[in-house]
């Protein structure tokens, strides 16, 4: 568990470096990625489906990114990208391809469908947090 958290922290910082993120945002990127992955990991361990776990994790990643973006007055994507990357279903996509190559099409199609669903849930997570952010902004502007 701790190993997973630290690994995801380093992975997110690594991606931030690959994408040329500003130096002062590196640690925050790592933090966002760590929270996202830890949530995903815990949920999967509790027996949640990968799709559901990915959705919740990507939602939290995007939500924290929005908070950071507001606080540090920086574009949201700086924080989102590094955190989303570990959630990308690379392993399942690889398995799907392997079975395509081995001519085991029914398993391959099954795995591809799962890849699509997980990718969709990442998207949905980002969308939900965006909507939440907009609602929050509207509410604040109405109160003020």
């Amino acid at each position: 568990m701790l190993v997973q958290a630290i690994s995801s922290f380093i992975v997110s910082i690594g991606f931030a470096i690959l994408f040329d993120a500003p130096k002062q945002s590196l640690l925050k990127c790592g933090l966002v990625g760590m929270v996202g992955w830890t949530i995903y990991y815990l949920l999967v361990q509790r027996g949640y489906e990968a799709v559901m776990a990915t959705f919740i994790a990507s939602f939290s990643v995007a939500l924290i990114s929005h908070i950071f973006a507001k606080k540090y007055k920086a574009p949201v994507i700086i924080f989102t990208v590094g955190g989303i990357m570990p959630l990308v279903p690379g392993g399942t996509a690889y398995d799907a391809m392997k079975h395509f190559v081995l001519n085991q099409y029914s398993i391959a199609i099954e795995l591809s469908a799962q890849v699509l669903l997980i990718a969709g849930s990442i998207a949905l997570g980002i969308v939900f947090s965006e909507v939440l952010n907009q609602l929050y902004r509207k509410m604040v502007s109405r109160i003020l």
Partner: protein
Amino acid sequence: MGKLRIQKNDVSQLCILAGQIMLESGAETYRVEDTMLRIAYAFGVDYAESYVAPTVIIFSIDGGYSTRTEMKRIEKRGTNLNKIALVNQLSREISAGMWTLEEAFERLRAIQRGKIVYPLWLQVIAAGLVSGFCVILFKGSWEDFLPGLIIGSHSYYAFILLDHMTKLKFFSEFTAAILIGVLSHLAIHFGIGHQMDKIVIGSVMPLVPGLLITNAIRDLMAGHLVSGLSKGTEALLTAFAIGSGIAIVLQFIK
């Protein structure tokens, strides 16, 4: 009136330069459009309109007596979050009235000339660390950590070199993926690695087009259908290039 016209042209040039830097660095479409409009209004333009797609910027300024529309073709697309943040910061400061037109121009040109924040060796090391720790994240064993780190960093280095030489991104990704496949197989063959699957998955991670995927989603949501679809297609093509590279290697060793 002559002077006013020159000023208007300059504002339009400034906005387009800002948009160009952001788009070439991989910013979301709505952010590019929004920044351009914000800069224009900050310099006292009555009405401005912008349309941005991944390969073009169309920007129009209306100043009462005539409308001026300019188009800018965007040739290259990369990823540079730092430049996006810098232009974003500048546009905030311009909105707050902290910059004159000439100063802002100078600043933008400096941002455009600016190099990447991290030197190549650091990027290669980062790619290696990403690969190594992704092996751990995807439930690989620590024995596969080192092979993942080495193969990941080397293939990323090869990808960057190829990208400089050929200027054809998909081909570079394809070749890098083949390299990953071959090296992973060799690692297993010589007993350095244990699970080929985990090593390959980890090493491939630095090549995955993460920024394109997130941007495509956000663009589609914001109603920028053309940008969203084309970025999604680019991400899909990249994924296809990586996948087919690995698939070819698997075909030979299955």
